[in-house]
């Protein structure tokens, strides 16, 4: 039996420490991991918990991220609670196995501390790895600060392990900006945290020796399509209601509220930015200042990246006149992902907002309040003109000459 840890009601934790404690409190059975900046402390903290009897599951330090996720898949199929953490290049190395985990319907939790992907090599935070995961069949939840990184882990386990879902889930946080920035984090007791998720309920577990099971079969054109359709069906129909129920239950327990789409000052907003990660909180500050000058600005934060909350997003943006989508990942040859997703979400609605795209913060470049004020000025001009007054895609915070497309 693992020892209980007494926590203060509010601990000063960075995002990595917050995630580590969540993994400890849900008493993961197997953590198989490989260290990579900036997620390394999650693994180190967990190793410390194991070395001091605060966890009694297995901790497997593998030879690579691919090996880590491979072990996680074997462990999850064997029948127990499984989690790991990674970033960037390590995430990229895992990609093959991410598709295996979701295709085999294994509820593994992966903490992704978002970081740029080389070349050029870069250890700082952007969303390239998060975006790379978006077609892999995982649930993707996005934290904006250490508190979220803590809370969303519990929600991820609860939803992923639900027998109606059985899909793996990622909890994202921004490299360094969240992972290494200490803030006050409201905690649950070990008992509260564990009970919110509950005992792991195995299904098709290899270790049920009386009921052998075959995992990871071959299907060709005869059945592959149906398998993928079932996976999509689960993501599209089961996950959203389970997430909403988990958000409600979590609010009842802690008083902290999460939503599929987070909003700030959106009730009467005429112009809005849509972004993810730490940028959401920076944008909230800017909006508060703009509101004081009479500008009806708002912020939309994507909390659930996959499955994409299409209807909820369309509802939030219904009356907005100009929208700026802010992507922290190089789109490499097209518009930013958020621009495309938001366009798709609004296209068949009555909303006729002017939509523009901003690429920012690659490789950990700061997004400043001044940048955001500039973006809101663009959006106001677009609203007044009823059409784009700027190029559709602009690079923000870039050194040298301005860069824009379309």
């Amino acid at each position, binding site marked *: 039996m693992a020892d209980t840890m007494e926590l203060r009601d509010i601990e000063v934790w960075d995002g990595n420490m917050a995630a580590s404690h969540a993994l400890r409190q849900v008493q993961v059975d197997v953590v198989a991991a490989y260290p990579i900046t900036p997620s390394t402390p999650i693994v180190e903290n967990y190793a410390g918990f194991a070395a001091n009897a605060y966890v009694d599951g*297995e901790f497997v330090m593998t030879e690579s991220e691919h090996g880590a996720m491979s072990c996680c898949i074997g462990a999850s199929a064997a*029948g*127990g609670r499984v989690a790991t953490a990674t970033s960037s290049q390590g995430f990229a190395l895992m990609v093959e196995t991410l598709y295996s985990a979701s295709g085999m319907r294994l509820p593994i939790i992966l903490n992704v501390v978002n970081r740029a992907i080389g070349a050029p090599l870069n250890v700082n935070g952007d969303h390239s790895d998060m975006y790379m995961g978006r077609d892999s069949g995982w649930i993707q939840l996005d934290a904006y600060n250490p508190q979220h990184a803590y809370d969303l882990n519990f929600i991820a386990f609860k939803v992923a392990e639900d027998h109606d879902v059985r899909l793996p889930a990622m909890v994202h946080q921004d490299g360094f900006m969240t992972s290494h920035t200490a803030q006050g984090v409201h905690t649950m007791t070990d008992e509260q945290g564990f009970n919110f998720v509950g005992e792991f309920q195995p299904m098709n577990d*290899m270790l049920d*020796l009386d009921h052998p099971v075959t995992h990871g*079969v*071959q299907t060709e054109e005869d*059945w592959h399509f149906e398998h993928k359709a079932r996976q999509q069906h689960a993501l599209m129909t089961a996950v959203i209601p389970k997430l909403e129920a988990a958000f409600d239950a979590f609010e009842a327990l802690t008083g902290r509220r999460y939503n599929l789409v987070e909003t700030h000052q959106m009730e009467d907003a005429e112009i809005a930015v849509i972004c993810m990660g730490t940028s959401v909180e920076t944008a909230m500050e800017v909006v508060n200042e703009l509101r004081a000058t009479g500008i009806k600005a708002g912020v939309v934060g994507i909390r659930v990246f996959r499955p994409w909350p299409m209807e909820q997003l369309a509802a939030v943006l219904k009356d907005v006149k100009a929208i700026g989508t802010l992507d922290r990942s190089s789109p490499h040859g097209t518009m930013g992902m958020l621009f495309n997703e938001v366009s798709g979400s609004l296209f068949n609605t009555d909303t006729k907002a002017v939509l523009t795209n901003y690429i920012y913060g690659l490789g950990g470049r700061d997004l400043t309040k001044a940048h955001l004020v500039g973006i809101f000025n663009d959006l106001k001009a677009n609203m007044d003109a009823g059409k784009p007054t700027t190029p559709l895609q602009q690079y923000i915070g870039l050194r040298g000459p301005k860069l824009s497309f379309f």
Partner: protein
Amino acid sequence: MMSEIKKIKNLKEFSTSADRFEGANLLCPGCAHSIIVREVLNATNDDLILAASTGCLEVCTAVYPYTSWDASWIHIGFENGSSAVAGAEAMYKALKTKGRLKQPERTPKFVAFGGDGATYDIGFQWISGCFERGHNMMYVCLDNEVYANTGGQRSSSTPIGASATTTPAGRVSYGEKRNKKDMMAIMAAHGAPYVAQVSPSKWKDMVAKIQKGFAAEGPVFINAISACTTEWKFAPEDTIAITDLATDSLVFPLYEIINGTELNITYRPKNIIPVRDYLGAQGRFKHLFTKQYEYLIDEWQTRVDLKWEQLQRREEARV
């Protein structure tokens, strides 16, 4: 309940003693893979948790909605059968510690199967990681010296002079140019408690080694010669005869290495057959029997003699 060493009296009993790997599979007629798998599985009465890397065995035994496996089995990808079973073994240990095993009195064995492509080449890093970490598992390489599942491309187990589709014999090429990687030495160098080379045709030797492997604590590596009727180009009914030529010519010597150092030769052919006879029985070496490339056969014989000499000296030295 401690697991007991299964007593095996004769081949008939052995070949029919358990059916956890069904005859209903899609492997080629004459494929040695199924023979090897049955000999491994039938060597124990314990429960089995199995994994396979992508390859002939995997694609031929778990085609939805069918399975040939009456034991829990998992496949992820080409390179990670070892890690899959290592993960399952870690979960077993965790649930044992936490008292959540459904059948706590039973002691399952963890076995991963992979071809030589999955073992010598693409999966090597994962296997090395599993062995370094000391998982309690057995890794069985079904060594047919070629990427057979994808149509006969060379691997680092393909021996010199073999014609493979990516190293074809031709007017100016005798086929594969590199010597077969010495996987046994590499795995022994991990300090594994038990490493052995086996042949399905020498079934008593093989079952003894598998049982030693199951009795060992820690990672066990088994390299099994798997004569491939399709890519080695011999008649399907000759699988066992070809396999015997490999062991009796000493091209594929049978030995074990305990704790990384103690080497024992476990089979000494009464009549050592010339390597030429082994090569001559297979289409993949046909081009060597020409004036242009015949010198390679002599080189083969010299190499095999030298390796046999080395093995005997290692055995005598006991280090």
